C-alpha cells in the first residue's frame, strides 16, 4: 500500500470514509479500542504504530491516521483507517472537531474506548515520542475502573505550564470539582458513551464552522455526571508547542485560551453554582524564601515591571472590573520591591473571578478585558517564580496553595455572579 495522504484537507472535521480513497477499508467492523493519531509525517508514522502495537499486543485496535504506513504488514495487529485530525485555534491542543470525528468513528466501528492523541506535530514526529506505557495506562484505567475520561498527568518542572498552574487547573478544580491537573488535554482516553456526548456537543460548533475551537472535556464530563480520572505519565514531559516568539504571539495565545475557558465557565454557570468542589484540606501558606537567584533572573524583573506599568496605566480599565479592595491590594503589591514581591493566592483568585464575571457581563470589550488581565498574570508568575526559586520542589506546594485559594474564594464568584450589582468594597 502506498503512503499517500488519505485526505486533502486536514482542517475538515468529518471522519470522511468517502474522502479517503487511497486507504483500504478497515478489516474489522468493531474494535475494542480506537486510537486517533494527529497528522504525523509519513516517516514518523511507523514509530507511532510500533508504540501502539507494543502497548496493545492482545487487543483489537483500530488506528485512525491521516496517512497509511508504507509497509502495513509490519503491524498485523492493527487496522488502520482514514482520519483527518483538526487543528485547534491554539495549535497543539485537541480541537472540538477532533472529538466529533472520534465520536463518529467510534460509532461506525463500535469501539468501546477511544484514545485521542494531540500535540505538536513536529514534537510527535520524533522517535519514541509516543510512550506505550502511557497509552496502556490510559486504556487500563478507562477499562478497569469504569471511568469515562482519563487524562495523563505529565511531569512538569517549576517553570513549565504556567498558564495551566495559574488559571486552568485552579479554576477547573474549584468550579467543576475535578482534580485534574491538565484540564485542557493534549491526549485523552474517553469511553464510547462520553465520546457520543462530546460528539453531539461539538456538532453545533462544527455546523457554525468553529470546529477548530477548544473543548473542555473535564468540565463537560463533570457537568454531565461522567467520571474523570488522571493517570501519571511518569517522567514524560507534556508535548508543548514552540514557545511564543513575540509578546504579540503570547497575548494571542493567552487571550484565546483564557477566553475559551471563561466562555465555558459562562455556559456552565448553572452547574458550577450548585456543584460542590473538592475542598481539599486547607494548605497553610508559608512565607516565600529569600531569593538569591533574583539578580540572575531578569524575567522576574521584567514581569514585575510590566505589572507596575499596568498599575500606572490601566487603572481606568481595572476599575471597571475589580472592586476597590482588590485594587488597593494590587497598589500595595506594585510598590513592593522584587525581593519581597508576593501576590497572595486569594488575591489572585478574586482577580481571576472578577475578570470571569466581567467577561460574562461584557463590562468592556472582551479582547481588551483579557489584554488587561495579562499583566496581572505576569504578577502571579513573578510571585510564583520567587516562591519556587530556592527549591523547585515547592512548585507543587505553590500550585496547591493557588488551587486551594480558588476553592476558598468560590463563594465570592458565586455571590458576585448572582448579584453583580451588590455593593462590593
Amino acid at each position: 500500500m502506498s503512503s499517500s495522504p488519505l485526505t486533502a484537507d486536514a482542517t475538515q472535521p468529518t471522519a470522511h470514509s468517502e474522502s479517503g480513497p487511497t486507504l483500504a477499508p478497515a478489516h474489522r467492523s468493531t474494535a475494542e479500542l480506537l486510537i486517533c493519531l494527529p497528522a504525523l509525517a509519513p516517516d514518523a508514522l511507523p514509530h507511532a504504530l510500533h508504540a501502539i502495537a507494543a502497548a496493545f499486543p492482545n487487543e483489537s485496535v483500530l488506528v485512525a491516521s491521516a496517512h497509511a504506513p508504507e509497509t502495513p504488514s509490519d503491524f498485523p495487529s492493527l487496522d488502520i483507517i482514514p482520519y483527518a485530525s483538526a487543528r485547534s485555534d491554539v495549535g497543539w491542543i485537541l480541537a472540538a472537531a477532533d472529538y466529533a470525528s472520534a465520536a463518529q468513528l467510534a460509532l461506525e466501528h463500535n469501539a468501546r474506548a477511544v484514545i485521542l492523541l494531540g500535540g505538536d506535530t513536529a514534537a510527535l514526529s520524533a522517535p519514541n515520542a509516543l510512550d506505550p506505557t502511557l497509552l496502556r495506562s490510559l486504556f487500563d484505567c478507562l477499562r478497569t475502573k469504569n471511568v469515562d475520561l482519563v487524562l495523563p498527568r505529565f511531569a512538569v518542572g517549576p517553570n513549565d505550564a504556567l498558564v495551566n498552574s495559574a488559571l486552568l487547573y485552579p479554576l477547573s478544580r474549584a468550579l467543576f470539582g475535578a482534580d485534574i491537573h491538565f484540564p485542557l488535554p493534549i491526549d485523552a482516553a474517553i469511553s464510547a458513551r462520553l465520546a457520543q456526548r462530546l460528539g453531539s456537543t461539538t456538532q453545533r460548533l462544527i455546523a457554525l464552522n468553529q470546529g477548530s475551537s477548544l473543548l473542555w472535556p473535564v468540565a463537560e464530563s463533570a457537568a454531565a455526571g461522567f467520571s474523570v480520572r488522571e493517570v501519571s505519565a511518569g517522567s514524560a514531559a507534556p508535548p508543548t508547542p514552540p514557545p511564543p516568539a513575540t509578546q504579540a504571539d503570547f497575548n494571542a495565545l493567552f487571550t484565546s485560551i483564557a477566553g475559551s475557558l471563561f466562555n465555558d465557565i459562562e455556559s456552565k454557570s448553572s452547574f458550577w453554582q450548585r456543584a460542590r468542589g473538592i475542598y481539599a484540606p486547607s494548605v497553610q501558606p508559608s512565607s516565600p524564601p529569600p531569593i538569591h537567584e533574583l539578580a540572575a533572573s531578569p524575567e522576574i524583573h521584567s514581569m514585575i515591571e510590566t505589572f507596575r506599568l499596568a498599575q500606572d496605566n490601566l487603572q481606568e480599565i481595572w476599575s471597571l472590573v475589580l472592586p476597590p479592595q482588590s485594587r488597593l491590594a494590587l497598589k500595595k503589591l506594585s510598590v513592593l520591591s522584587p525581593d519581597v514581591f508576593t501576590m497572595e493566592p486569594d488575591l489572585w483568585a478574586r482577580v481571576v473571578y472578577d475578570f470571569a464575571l466581567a467577561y460574562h457581563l461584557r463590562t468592556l470589550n472582551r479582547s481588551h478585558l483579557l489584554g488587561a488581565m495579562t499583566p496581572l498574570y505576569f504578577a502571579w508568575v513573578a510571585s510564583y517564580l520567587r516562591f519556587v526559586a530556592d527549591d523547585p520542589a515547592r512548585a507543587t506546594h505553590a500550585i496547591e496553595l493557588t488551587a486551594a485559594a480558588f476553592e476558598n474564594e468560590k463563594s465570592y464568584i458565586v455571590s458576585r455572579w448572582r448579584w453583580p450589582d451588590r455593593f462590593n468594597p
Partner: protein
Amino acid sequence: MGHQMAQQISAALRQSIHRIVLVLASFLPGILAFLLAVVVFALIGWGLSALIRRLLIAVRFDERLASREAPGSTGILTEWSPSNSPTVLAQRTIFWLLVLAGVAIGISAFDASYADDARYSIFLLPYVAHIAGAILILLVGTLIARFLARSVLIGAVNAQLQYARFLSLGIKWLVLVLSAAMALDHLQIGGTVVELAFGILFGGIVLTLSLAIGLGSRDLVSRSIEKTMEKPATPRPTEVPSRSDPDTPPRLRHF
C-alpha cells in the same frame, strides 16, 4: 412734542410686536406639524414594535438564534443586543426607525410650511439635517477614539512601552480632532479656517507623536543595535532564553 414722540415709540413697539407675532404665527404650523408627525410615528412605532415583540416571542426567536450559535459563545447579533436578546434589539430598531421616519416627515412638513419664505428655509432646514449628521459623526468618532485608545494602551503596556498612556492619548485625540473637524465641515462652519486649523492641529499631533516615539525609542534602537552586536539584552516576560547558554536561567513555558 413729547406726546408725538410717545406715539411714535408706541407705534414702533406695536409694529415690532406685530412682526414677532407674525413670525411666530408662521412658525407655529410648521412646529405643530413637526411635533404631530413625530408623536404619531412614535405611537405607530410603539404599537408596531410591541406587535413584533409578541410575534418574535411566540416563535421563540431568541432560542432559535441561540441554538444556531456556539455553546458558551455569542454571535454578533446577540453581542450587540440589549440584555443579549435579539428580540429586544428588533423591537427597539423598529421603534427608532419609525421615530426617525417621523422626524424626517416632520422636517419635510416644516419645510413645506416655509416654502414661501426663503430666509428661514435656506438658513434653518439644511441645519436640522446637518446637525443630526454632525452629532452622529461626533458620536461614532468618540466611540472609535475610545476603542482605539484602549487597544493601544493595553497593547503598549503589554509590550512594556513606558509611554503607553501618552501613545493612547495621542491616538484618542487624533481621532477626536478628526471627528470634530469632520463634524464642523459637515455643518459648513468655518470653511477654510477649520480645514487649515485641522491640518495644523493634526500635523502637530503627528509630529509630536513622531518626536515622542523617536525620542522614547532611543533605548529600543540602542538595544536593537546591541543585539546586532551580539550583546545580551533584558528579555521580555515571554522571550525565552536559550537552553544552550549556561548562564541563562531555566526557560519559562507559559503553555
